[in-house]
């Protein structure tokens, strides 16, 4: 980068990212440890597997801003770290859209996404994805299809009250913070879900 300001922003982004991770570790009593073999950034307990860090400041807020304007800012734990790397590298052709970000933004987001990815956090669903696969579409993951496979035809799709499975918050009110518990599901026009 040609300007001092640019480097200051990158540095601030990295520091903020590290601060968010460190603070998350200090405040939570119930974090689950284990990092799936990938260690990024500050030592200490990783963020709890059951929720996305709340966007109080720093990189989580940056992620919401850069990746949450056109669709839900999907919880990083929904994909393995390598998938996030792949997505960041292909933003100029992002499922038919252009979602380019600046190099400084990518530099700030990448470690945070990888640190909070499903396999980094030890999520079974993420670690079960074969190593040679790098899926980019959450809705096509095997575990996702398994969870949504019993929804009656016609409930979700063009013309239905929920247009797409990718619109998680339509039925999962806690989706923005990574909460998808069955008890909270409310499908528009159909109510709760009881398996």
């Amino acid at each position, binding site marked *: 980068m040609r300007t001092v300001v640019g480097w200051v922003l990158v540095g601030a982004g990295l520091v903020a990212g590290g601060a968010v991770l460190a603070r998350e570790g200090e405040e939570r009593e119930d974090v689950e440890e284990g990092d799936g073999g990938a260690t990024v950034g500050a030592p200490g307990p990783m963020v709890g597997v059951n929720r996305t860090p709340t966007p109080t400041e720093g990189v989580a807020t940056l992620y919401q801003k850069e990746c949450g304007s056109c*669709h839900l800012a999907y919880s990083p734990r929904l994909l393995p770290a390598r998938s996030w790397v792949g997505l960041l590298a292909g933003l100029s052709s992002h499922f038919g*859209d*252009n*979602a*380019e970000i600046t190099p400084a933004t990518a530099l700030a987001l990448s470690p945070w996404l990888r640190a909070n990815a499903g396999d980094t956090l030890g999520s079974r669903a993420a670690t079960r994805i074969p190593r040679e696969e790098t899926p980019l579409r959450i809705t096509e993951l095997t575990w996702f299809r398994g969870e949504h496979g019993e929804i009656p035809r016609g409930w979700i799709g063009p013309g239905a009250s929920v*247009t797409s499975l990718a619109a998680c918050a339509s039925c999962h009110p806690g989706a923005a913070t990574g909460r998808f518990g069955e008890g909270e599901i409310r499908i528009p026009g159909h109510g709760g879900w009881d398996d």
Partner: protein
Amino acid sequence: MRVLVLILTAAAAAAWSPAVGGLMSEYRSAGATDPLAARGKAAWSKEYPNAEGGVRSCASCHGSDVRQAGKHATTGERIAPLSPQVQPDRLTEAAEIEKWFGRNCKWTMARSCTPQEKADFLAYLSL
């Protein structure tokens, strides 16, 4: 007529946010002439071919009335109105404006917007 255009442009410039004012100077340095809201408005609805045999324009997501909310053409997500008269946080950050020009000009037109086009768009949106 030219004097009238200049007067109207000056009046509009008084309504620009600092971010827009700064960008307008940059676009001028890059070769843009006086921004014209009418040109920006016409370009807003101009249609370009998409890969599926249909068309797309700025209005595809933002609508043709920038004082109304738009809707993302693929995800259906609501897009807040672009007009700062209706949505005061719009057009207040130069980096944000440039970011969305980068993404959306390339998606819509398969190329970057020229400094003139950006200036005209900002003049139109700032109305």
